[in-house]
């Protein structure tokens, strides 16, 4: 039915949806790269849990893939959580500290 060219046009139109306005500002490229990086990092991190048990690692990788797809612009969340806002940092410090204590004290 459709030729190669129309397929190309379809893909082009489909990808064009993602960019509002001028798609190639230097800020935008930064965000795109960071988004890709963040999702890859997340996958690698999830796979790191195989050192505790391999099934856990597999489950986490699948969960991470699902998470990356569902919460698509990860970088926006990441940027928000990386604010130097005092309450936010305090929140994360408390969470971290609780995890450290829980893992070291009752982790075995």
């Amino acid at each position: 039915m459709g030729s190669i060219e129309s397929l190309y046009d379809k893909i082009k139109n489909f990808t064009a949806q993602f960019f509002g306005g001028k798609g190639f500002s230097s800020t935008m490229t930064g965000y795109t790269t960071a988004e890709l990086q963040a999702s890859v990092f997340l996958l690698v991190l999830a796979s790191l849990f195989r050192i505790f048990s391999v099934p856990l690692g597999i489950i986490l990788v699948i969960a991470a893939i699902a998470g990356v797809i569902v919460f698509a612009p990860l970088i926006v969340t990441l940027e928000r959580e990386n604010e130097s806002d005092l309450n936010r940092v305090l929140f994360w410090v408390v969470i971290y500290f609780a995890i450290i204590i829980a893992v070291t004290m009752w982790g075995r």
Partner: protein
Amino acid sequence: MEMKELRGSRGVLAAVALLIIFIGVTVAFVQLNGNVARGISPEYNRLAHLQQPNSLSAWVYDWRGFDTLIETGVIYVGAVVSVLVIGRGLVRMKQVEGEEPVPQTSLDLKIGSVNAILKYFIFPLVILLAAYGILIVTGAATSGGGGFQCGVVVASAYLIGAVFFGKKNPLNFRRKFLIAIGSFGWALYALLGLPGYLVTGYWQYNVGTDLWSSIAGFPAQIPSILHTIFGDPYRLALVLKGGTFYSTAGIVPLINIGEAFNVIGAICLIFLVFIYGWSDTEEAKA
């Protein structure tokens, strides 16, 4: 983050996390209860009388003298930083235009109803408090007091003066005076280590007391002249049950004086900056 966000699932998460921390710390303290190891501390107590009647001063200034030097530095830095931030010197780069700092205004203290009291009472109080501070630092060789306490007492005298008299503070420490004695105090403290360093190689070795030069492996004998200079001014006779002992605190009282000057300079400077403000024009006038 808004407080709103903390009311949702994040708040629950944070509460659970705090609970875990609480349980962990409590478990640790329960385990520690009754199991505290004494370590080296009996040794300190066994040695303390050899050099001065007060083991607290001995502990604080002789064994941990260097440690206290750096702690003193924390106070000094605190003063320098507050003065810097409040207004003496926001640093500017030549090439870059920066924001102009907000001009400092001094706190206006209104003195109304306390006049009658302050006329007869507050001025002597300020003077006597300052004298009391000096008493504490001179008694550093024999009592638990020391430089820091002296500094705090004198600073409180200064603060009382500031509260009741406003700009006409009777203890009218000037900025340059405070900076000078603060710097002099820390420098004195730091440099009192020099005699011991030059003679033995150990920084802040107490040449006046000279406890260790008789022990094998100690690098040098202390010349008697140093021993006299730093030991004799503070020699005391301890009349105890076992007889009369002669003891000296060596450089410890001098260190305390340095510490006192530093603390007076630093803390009064912090008070001064926060109460009266600091503008470059006033400084130029002064």
